[in-house]
């Protein structure tokens, strides 16, 4: 089952910790967003393989934008 990793809030992508093809476990760090001068870590919602990465460092994202897709 594939699940999208959604942006919990609007912000800028500061770093991306995974690449397509990586295997992640639930609660692993996927990427870090910067919103209002604060770093917010976004975690994997489930165990699985990263099948798509929709953003890169420096991208501005809105709340609920898809950041990555994980196939569990």
């Amino acid at each position: 089952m594939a699940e999208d990793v959604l942006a919990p809030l609007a912000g800028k992508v500061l770093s991306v910790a995974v690449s397509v093809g990586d295997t992640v476990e639930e609660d692993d760090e996927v990427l870090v967003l910067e919103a209002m001068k604060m770093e917010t870590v976004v975690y994997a919602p489930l165990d699985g393989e990263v099948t798509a990465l929709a953003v890169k460092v420096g991208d501005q994202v809105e709340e609920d934008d898809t950041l990555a897709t994980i196939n569990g």
Partner: protein
Amino acid sequence: MAFVEQLGILSVTPGMVAMWAIALTLLYLAIAKEHEPLLLLPIGFGILLANLPLTGLMTPEEGLLWRFYRYGVEWEVIPPLVFLGLGAHTDFGPLLSQPRLVFLGAAAQGGVYLTFFAAQAFGFSLEEAATIGIIGGADGPTTIFLAAQLAPHLLGACAVAAYSYMALAPIIQPPIMRLLTTEQERAIRMKKGRKVTAREKLLFPIAATLVIILLVPASAPLIGMFMLGNLFRESKVVERLAETAQDALMNIVTIFLGVSVGATMSADNFLRSDVIFIFVLGLVAFAVSTACGLVLAKLMNLVTSDKINPLVGAAGVSAVPMAARVVHKIGAEANKKNYLLMFAMGPNLAGVIGTVIAAGIFLSMLGG
């Protein structure tokens, strides 16, 4: 001989030297520690200048800094312009998305009113007590606005206290938040609010202006400029004005505001036994306001099924966005997938408006 008499060094008083130490401490905090440098640097330097002998800088009708203070602060020009910039910078979306959180911003003014009564009990006049109470909102421009009208001799101390507590929110608030909430409450993940449309955001500054100013006319200078700035932003047709208000104009007025506030802090005004009371009472106001927001959030949870994380109540003080960041951080400690930042911005923005309304109420009760 005349030249010798004109030498400043012969007129230095111990009070001045003490104020130099305070000025240098603020400059150190601003430059080395980067605590609110945009404000503390000009304030610190203003204090230094105001406490050098024979300069005439604060001489009424003549001095340069006196003119900055008189026409900028006393004439109520600069604090409203700061609010213009804040309005242009502010997205009211988080507040409109969860209107029930507005109550938390109102509750967190509890410390302001409580301290107003406490300060009177300590022997401060009504005007002084109101000015000290407003520190509880931890809102610099509102504190300065009110102090200039009601108790100009306390302006420097109250402004520095308000800015200090705003900067110290990450130190002052977490112990209170942990004391009044359980681990489970802090871990509550809130349901997302509804999406706010562009039209709602556009109409908000106009509707808010009408409602608030019709109820509390004395809040008009701050609320009026705040909402005008916000209309610049949300109308999308005057981006140049929105940009100037929040950027260039804000920077310009910050320079004059900082130096003027510093310049009010002469040794005579500041080295008084009641200044220490101001800092203590201001801290109490800020702590009580934080607690009031937390407690109301917990009470609201008793009657609502859609649970509120009580931490967001602590953002009801108006230290934007410091208090919201603190909430986000403490919430994430309890549950790392807890993203409270935007939820906390709602009460935080309501808190700004709440503190301005409190100032307006004090002004209409006590203003001459």
